[in-house]
């Protein structure tokens, strides 16, 4: 019997999370791994929005910014526990996505692109300029999640790097599980249907605007939680998290790896997260190489790296 996509994806992720540390040459790699998982989580949201529902967003970093700054600000100003701050950020992102998505999701293609871009830029501008609250472009400290301490008291003593590696790894698995649940559910089918033919989707009774909005809100929550995790593990965050380049990064990771497949998008996140680490010696070449990879993959492996290779691997079985 063949493994379902869901089981295969989750098992691959589990294997990676558990086995990879055995090969880490230094504890620094726990940090890189955790970053990969956080990016993977954000990118999983892009799979739902772009890969399945077929909608473009060039402003999703805005939601990551909201999630990140919720963790920076809520504990200090509202006295919330950081874990609740993650939740608060997700709720704010969802509400905002719902409000913004209603008008802009009527737009198509490039028009949706520029509208979402506008949203993202507005968020990053607020984070940069409201210095009294956010401390501006220099960034702001973020409180400790406190979970590592609890684990230690319970007898599980992990280093900071190890803790965030496993915590983000399992968060990613949870996020991937949710996404894969959607894929084969009535909602997922309807999303993919509206991507295939909006007019046919409407004639089978799919409320297209409502469904697009749902995908937008869900993907915004993914980005928001990813932003929160980034802020919490770094204990520090700058407005760059909401910047246009971060939005582009999210879309690029997803599309390079394969935007219609969760594991593909996560692979894309891994590659683009590793790239700067690999190129640290040639820091000046980083942009050149990144641009080159983006162009070459999109020309020669249009569906993204993972689906293109899977197709070759399976041959022409129909």
């Amino acid at each position, binding site marked *: 019997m063949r493994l379902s996509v869901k089981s295969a994806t989750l098992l691959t992720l589990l294997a990676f999370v558990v086995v990879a540390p055995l090969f880490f040459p230094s504890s620094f790699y726990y940090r890189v791994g955790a970053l990969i998982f956080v990016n993977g989580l954000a990118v999983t949201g892009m799979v739902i929005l772009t890969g399945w529902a077929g909608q473009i967003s060039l402003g999703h970093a805005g939601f990551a910014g909201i999630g990140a700054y919720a963790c920076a600000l809520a504990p200090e100003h509202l006295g919330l526990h950081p874990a609740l701050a993650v939740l608060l950020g997700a709720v704010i992102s969802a509400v905002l996505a719902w409000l913004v998505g209603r008008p802009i999701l009527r737009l198509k293609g490039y028009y949706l692109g520029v509208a979402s871009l506008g949203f993202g830029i507005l968020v990053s501008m607020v984070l940069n300029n409201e210095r009294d609250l956010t401390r501006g472009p220099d960034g702001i400290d973020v409180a400790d999640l406190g979970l590592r301490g609890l684990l230690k008291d319970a007898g599980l003593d992990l280093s900071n790097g190890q803790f965030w590696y496993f915590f983000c790894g399992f968060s990613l698995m949870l996020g991937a599980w949710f996404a894969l649940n959607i894929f*084969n559910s*009535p909602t997922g089918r*309807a999303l*993919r*249907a509206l991507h*295939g033919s909006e007019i*046919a989707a*409407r*004639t*089978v009774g799919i409320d297209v605007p409502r469904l697009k909005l749902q995908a937008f809100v869900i993907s915004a929550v993914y980005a928001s939680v990813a932003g929160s995790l980034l802020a919490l593990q770094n204990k520090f965050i700058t407005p760059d998290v909401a910047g246009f380049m971060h939005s582009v990064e999210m879309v690029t990771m997803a599309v390079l790896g394969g935007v219609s497949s969760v594991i593909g998008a996560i692979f894309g996140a891994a590659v683009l997260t590793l790239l700067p680490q690999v190129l640290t010696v040639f820091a000046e070449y980083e942009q050149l190489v990144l641009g080159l990879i983006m162009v070459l993959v999109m020309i020669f492996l249009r569906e993204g790296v993972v689906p293109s290779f899977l197709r070759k691997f399976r041959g022409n079985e129909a």
Partner: protein
Amino acid sequence: MTLLSIEGLGISFGGIAAVKNVSFRVSPGEIVSVIGPNGAGKTTLFNMISGVYQPGSGKVVLNGEDVTAMSPHLLARRGMSRTFQNLQIFQTMSVLENTLAGYHLQESGPVLADLLNLPSSRRRARAAEEGARALLKRVGLERAAEREAGSLSYGSLKRLEIARAMALKPKVLLLDEPAAGCNAVETEEIDHLIAEIAASGVAILLVEHDMKMVMRISNHIVVLDHGEKIAEGDPATVSRDPAVIAAYLGAEHAAG
């Protein structure tokens, strides 16, 4: 008893009337065909009835309710379903999934239930899948269920669209050239399928170029030319109508 009533429907594009003041009625179990030369406005008429275009004038009444210019997804809730002349298949989805999409209104539930893969979500999906497989069997595609829809032959896609439209359990079904591009055998299969669907009490509105098929299965024929209704009646009456012969059959003879 009238199920669908078209009352004086008209639309113009850029000042040119594409359809003018067209009226007719369709009853449950009845097959009504709309015929006419190319460019007569048949598909435009379909697009107005199914809510894709907003009519410039006139009304569409379904089951006693004015549904003029209503969004297609609301029409679907009220029992209207359609296929497309140039196929609107969900290419990257499997044949089964395409059919399941037709079950959207019956199987969809709270997103959160789907996200968490709750038993209620799985139950909905399972019920729909049983129905979809039965439908695929009915149109002869059960063996292709797991294939990617984009890889199917043209004739199979036509039948897949009918299966998807039937999945909605419609009261009225609009078929836009279901036999176009099909060979004789395929046409006959579709022919039987349509008759079967009508026999189960569904009102069918058909646009078709294959005159033999239209004459064979229609109860009632509406003839359009240059956007206007020039004749209507049963197949025998219409085929003897001088205006029809001049406008449609005549044009065909001249061309052939």
